[in-house]
């Protein structure tokens, strides 16, 4: 007689799995990858390959020789962390620094907490901030975007980012008009498309938004996180711009420069380190937006989204406890 399997219901399973989710994230990053290769050339490809390779390598080595547990590099999460790390560095960063960053990303921020699903902070951001603090010079000398097939040759090899120019200008007491008139300042359309100095993945807002919409449709992220971050930054920037337009630049500048789009769409939405429930996600997003704008307007760094996300990551467990989903049958009295 044949034996039947006995188990509790449900007896069927949906088609979702971890690998599929990770692959969806990778597909969503393809537009930004292509843009980075277009503007920064083979350097961009080099950085991405090194970061992904090193991330997978470290995860494998740690799982095999330190934890002596199952090897899970095929689930794609190490590759995603690698690409995100690459997105967060300049294209001309030395290889060994990138490898060190990948070690911190995978070894410190991810595996030391127990691997995928256990890390309280976004691993790629931890790696990025480690690199920024350890190698400030190399991490802030940005190659100038040089589109493939471009007719003009530019002499400058590195140049400041739009946010860097802004911070420096404001620090020197210049007005917004004077800062915007700086020849190094990228024009509006360039900022939108990505034709400016910056980290690999952050330059093109358009490419990032396309990826974000793709992830929302595939239900890998909820729109609440990016939208609440972007709206908060926009509103705060607008308020201060209205108060003193010559000291505080218009909000669209903030939206399309620096890592805001990258952070809002790809980093803050990391499932593991962001809150679980929709109301909590909005609180999380607003918090990130506020901290970002505070750092950008009054902080020492020109860019604040990385720190903002990491700080809010720390609040995630508290947010999860405080903001519950809407229960069925909860009567208002």
């Amino acid at each position: 007689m044949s034996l039947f399997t006995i188990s509790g219901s449900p007896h069927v399973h949906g088609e979702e799995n971890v690998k599929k989710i990770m692959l969806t994230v990778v597909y969503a990053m393809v537009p930004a990858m292509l843009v980075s290769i277009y503007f920064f050339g083979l350097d961009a490809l080099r950085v991405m390959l090194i970061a992904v390779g090193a991330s997978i390598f470290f995860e494998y080595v740690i799982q095999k020789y330190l934890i002596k547990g199952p090897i899970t590099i095929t689930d794609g999460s190490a590759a995603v962390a690698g690409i995100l790390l690459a997105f967060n560095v300049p294209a001309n960063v030395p290889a060994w620094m990138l490898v060190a960053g990948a070690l911190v990303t995978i070894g410190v921020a991810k595996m030391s907490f127990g691997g995928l699903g256990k890390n309280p902070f976004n691993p790629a951001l931890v790696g990025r901030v480690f690199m920024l603090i350890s190698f400030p010079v190399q991490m802030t000398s940005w190659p100038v975007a040089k589109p493939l097939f471009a007719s003009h040759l530019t002499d400058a090899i590195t140049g400041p980012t739009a946010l860097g120019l802004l911070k420096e200008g404001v620090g020197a007491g210049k007005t917004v008009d004077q800062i915007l008139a700086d020849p190094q300042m990228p024009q509006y359309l360039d900022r939108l498309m990505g034709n400016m100095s910056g980290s690999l993945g952050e330059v093109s807002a358009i490419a990032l938004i396309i990826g974000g919409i793709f992830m929302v449709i595939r239900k890998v992220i909820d729109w609440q996180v990016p939208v609440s971050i972007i709206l908060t930054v926009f509103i705060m920037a607008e308020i201060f711009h209205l108060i003193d337009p010559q000291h505080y630049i218009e909000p669209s500048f903030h939206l399309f420069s620096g890592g805001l789009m990258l952070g809002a769409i790809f980093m803050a939405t990391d499932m593991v380190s962001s809150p679980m429930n929709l109301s909590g996600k909005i609180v999380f997003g607003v918090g990130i937006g506020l901290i970002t704008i505070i750092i950008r307007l009054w902080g020492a760094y020109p860019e604040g989204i990385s720190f903002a996300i990491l700080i809010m990551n720390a609040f995630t467990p508290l947010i999860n406890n405080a903001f519950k989903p809407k229960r069925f049958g909860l009567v208002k009295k």
Partner: protein
Amino acid sequence: MNKLKTFTIGGVHPHENKLTDQVAIRTLPLPKQLIIPLGQNLGVPPKPIVKKGDEVKTGQLIARGEAFISSNIHAPASGKILKIDDALDASGYRRQAIFLDVTGDEWADDIDTSGTIEREIKLSKSEIVARIKECGLVGLGGATFPTHVKMMIPDGKKAEYLIINGVECEPYLTSDHRMMLEKGDEILVGVSIMMRALDTEKAVIGIENNKPDAIAKLSQLAQSYKGIQIQPLKVKYPQGGEKQLIKACVNREVPSGKLPIEVGCVVSNVGTAFAVYEAVQKNKPLIERVVTITGKNLTHPSNFLVRVGTPISDLIAAAGGMPEDTGKLINGGPMMGKSLSTPDVPVVKGSSGILLLKNEESKRPTPKTCIRCSKCTVVCPMGLEPFLLSKLSKLGLYERAEKEQIMDCIECGSCQFTCPSGLPLLDYLRLGKQKTGQLIRNRK
């Protein structure tokens, strides 16, 4: 046609796999022996009133439900009582059952076995309830709650709506669908009878949109019945859940821990409505029901009209025999059904379907680590956090689980169905509900 409605929180959409929705109901021949478990209703099992050697006719009372929540059992065929002994039933336990050696199908005299449709309702409110009790009716949707108890509205409450479940949101199952197509008039008379018993002016029959033929058929028939509305619903699991169905049909939310009557609703199922018709208009006790026997590798998946007590193995044989690579045998649908260890258990009043899964379909995904994607929370129709509740249950933190409303879980399985990490969330939730329930009972 009305606009499609549905419930608002959570829900999933598993593959429907309705293999048998176009297969007409056939009557299965009587087996040589029927094994009739006594525990077929929710509540206290009835006491047998026959003994070894007794001759019984089809429809004769053989076990009487004496407790408040209990229901009668009648002989599903005529024959001789072989013994009263323990037998394995679909719950997986050995429990008391009446063994009947079938000699024929001679019906008790006072039962109308003709097929003519009796539309005129002659019985009064209290007579209807008494008849339903006498005929041993239970909810045929699967919960098997005695129907006559449901018809008794507590003092101070009023049933504003009778809501009839024609949703059949479980994949594969089609018995209710076929009943609506083939027994539409009888169902509507049954609904009218229940409306009279409940003093209710309005009845809503909720049917999911994947059964357009049933919606069309009942909508057309319902025009000649007073107060019965057919409500098409968007296909979403678990819409057949009592609370979800009420929300979908009349947009009321049953408070946590309360019964539907709290919001003026009584919920029943189309199969039960048909049984009510037969009991009240034909004096026919509940001794048979429609059972879907289905599975992707069965040669003839079917809908059978089966007498209670028929072994499931007979259904499988009639559907083309047990396929070689059957890995799992399920009593019910794939989302909430119970897996069986053997086909040698009898059909009972609550059996709506038997599903055979292939070996490859029977395997659960390998559990990985939770990636905190919150998909379980998004799909939970009760607005709970399955990832948290399963963790609390694993850690034995039942007090905290109670605060997080673990007892509201309806065990629909949407969380586990959707989990990308393949975690056995519902296994832990069930354990947690058991333990938390103990905790609550001990406190009293």
